[in-house]
């Protein structure tokens, strides 16, 4: 009991942690809310040239020297698709989440360490956007989830997203090793861009499927459930009854049997 009491966080700690989280969250908000605006508005010739150089150095092996796409050479397998028309949003999403450049060919590009600075990503985005018109990086206002309606966003999420990403955005399986990734830790801009550009197996949710306001509501919902306290205790990964059943068998039955062995051994 003493050990338990000693480990229990003190109320002051919780409050401090909350304040810290709020400050960090605000800082992140400011960072992400200001940058895209400058990027999408002013795509100067310098920026496009810088982006082209970066692209040719890091992406051309698969996507081709002029982003025209390449084949692997075996059958109809594509090494990298043509990028004209994918838009700045696709570049910002793929490179900004570390999915591109891919370390190795695989079924699906996993989220990993981001290889470029945000400036460089904007430069590459400007270059790709200069090839053909495509979806732009969303503005700060479009992803300002504080203005969104989480309840409406929740409905949109359950109807359109939960079937693959799970009710809590924990992710889920698709066919043949493909998967819908967990949405935990995704930035509002990246969530918006994913809906807009449909990366990998994901469908495109254009503005006629989910309106600009609706997309913001979805982001508001995801942010609301990620910020809410864990009512009722540990979430066990928010994976539903499978993890609950495993917990009952391993932890629950384990404790019961331990207690029974102890009682059985006790001299009467």
């Amino acid at each position, binding site marked *: 009991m003493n050990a338990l009491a000693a480990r229990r966080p003190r109320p002051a700690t919780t409050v401090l942690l909350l304040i810290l989280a709020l400050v960090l969250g605000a800082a992140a908000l400011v960072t992400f809310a200001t940058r895209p605006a400058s990027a999408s508005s002013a795509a100067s010739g310098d920026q496009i040239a810088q982006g082209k150089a970066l692209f040719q150095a890091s992406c051309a092996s698969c996507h081709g020297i002029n982003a025209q796409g390449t084949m692997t050479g075996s059958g109809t397998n594509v090494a990298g698709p043509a990028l004209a028309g994918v838009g700045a949003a696709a570049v910002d999403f793929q490179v900004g989440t570390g999915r591109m450049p891919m370390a190795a060919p695989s079924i699906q590009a996993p989220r990993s360490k981001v290889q470029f600075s945000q400036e460089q990503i904007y430069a590459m985005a400007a270059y790709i956007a200069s090839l053909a018109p495509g979806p732009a990086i969303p503005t700060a206002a479009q992803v300002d989830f504080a203005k969104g309606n989480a309840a409406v966003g929740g409905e949109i999420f359950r109807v359109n997203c939960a079937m693959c990403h799970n009710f809590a955005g924990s992710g889920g399986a698709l066919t043949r090793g493909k998967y819908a990734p967990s949405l935990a830790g995704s930035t509002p801009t990246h969530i918006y861009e994913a809906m807009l550009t449909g990366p990998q197996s994901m469908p495109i949710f254009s503005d006629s499927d989910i309106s600009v306001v609706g997309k913001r509501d979805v982001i508001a919902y995801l942010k609301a459930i990620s910020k809410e306290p864990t009512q009722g205790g540990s979430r066990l990964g928010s994976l539903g*009854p499978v993890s609950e059943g495993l917990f*009952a068998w391993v*932890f629950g039955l384990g404790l019961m049997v331990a207690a029974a062995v102890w009682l059985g051994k006790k001299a009467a």
Partner: protein
Amino acid sequence: MSTATTPAHQRPADALRDGDTAARPAPSTGARRLGGVAGWVDDRTGAAKGVTYLMKKVFPDHWSFMLGEVAMYSMIVCLLSGVFLTFWFVPSAGETIYHGSYAPLQGIQMSEAYRSTLDISFEVRGGLIIRQIHHWAALMFVVAVSAHMFRVFFTGAFRKPREINWVIGTILSLLAIVEGFAGYSLPDDLLSGTGLRAMEGFMQSTPVLGSYLAYMVFDGPFPGSAIIPRLYSVHVLLIPGILIALFTAHIVIVALQKHTQYPGPGKTEQNVVGFPVLPVYAAKAGGFFFIVFGIIALMSALVQINPIWGYGPYDPSPVTAGSQPDWYMGFADGALRITPGWLEFHPFGYTLSLNVALGALGLIPVMYTITGAYPFLERWVTGDTREHHLLDRPRNAPVRTGLGMAAMTAYGVFMFAAGNDIMAVLLHMSINDITHFFQVGLFVLPPLAFWVTKRICLSLQRRDRDMVLHARESGTIIRTAHGGYFERHDGIDEFERWPLVQHEAVAPLELPAGTDANGVASPTARSERLRARLSHFYFKDAVNPVTPAELAAAHPGPHEEEVPALEHDADHFVGIEQDHADGVGAPRH
């Protein structure tokens, strides 16, 4: 009942006082009061006899005998917490708009059932912990029922005279999962609604009757507004009523038949070695209730279960990734997931959905029928019609243990298949590969489990024989005065030896003559042949226990100091079951 005994040298007149009991000290006020109440009740009900019988009942001590208690207490916790939930739960599909304190659902249209469950979670004081206690206790109930069932099966406790209780237990286990599923479906959240939708699909896959059946249960097309109140009646009244009645019968039968016990020195088919209910078991079992309740409360306080606010209200169009039933229904879901899709046929313009019906509808009755019928099958095969109150050590029934493990493996394949999508995500594997693994595994793994288990059992039996005959190798090499060497074997005493030699020797049944003296074919010849074959399958490579003669023969040789003791032991063995002369029998007391 002690009386004063008279020493022989006392005068005859002293015998007048024979049979007198010494004056007892006056009972304390408390005891007098209690006695008064007990007497009052006994005068009016005559309960003293029955209560005395129960209180003197002796139960053997072993942790595995308490798994059934865990099930019983979990069920009581479910009943208690369930009553609390009924005070607030509204079993209605009536539509309402949410205005409670959970912000991400503000203003959303939902059913009364879902809103009231949200209110239990967020508005009712202590509601969430009671809801979680109810759900965790339900999971633990079925977990404990299963574990208890494994214990009863692997120790052969289902044998005569306990077959009826095995059948009752099988029905209880089936009722438990149906009760659990009804409860899981009540809150009308996205997950439970998806479960009901699946259930409706299962019903529809019934050949010919399907759509009528589904319309009858749901009172029209899915989802309708009838299913929630109907499930509520089933969940709080119908099944709990049957469950409690059968459970009471289960317990009464255990009390009437004495409890089984593990073999050991002094334990026979005629006695029960243990402690009486009063005071020992009343205290132990009473205390264990609070331990079980405490563990469930601990789980409920620390770990979320079924976060219905996250799933959102049910709406037939959405579905969430990772839609699974609670674990005990997982095997049926898994069977559905691994049944190949090409089993759907379209004869004469009708659809026959065997791809759904086989796994989702067929499995449950088949599984429970086999489970319930097993004691009768084994009894027929072994031809053993005697009563058994001493348990088998699982290794001493290698084929039964192997069959049990094979059945558990098949069940496990079905159950884990229900989590194929979760495994695919967590293990970074292809869900198709996992599904194919389970499809093949269903046919490969159970026989493999049977074979491995049986070999392990036989090896353990040989090891037991070895232990009895040669005891423990000490690793100490001794040189005799004549220059010879031998390894000292540490002897095992008769108490250690007893569990290793107490069981009976077994052999396959002999095939009776197929024709009688006049050459007329026996009408039962075919079934007898099958029986002989099965008996052969059960017992053909049986490893039988060491007989007293073998034991005596095994101990001449260099350990001179041990031999007299061993011969002395052998003198003390007498057969208790005369019909099995090769069994070593019980030590005389």
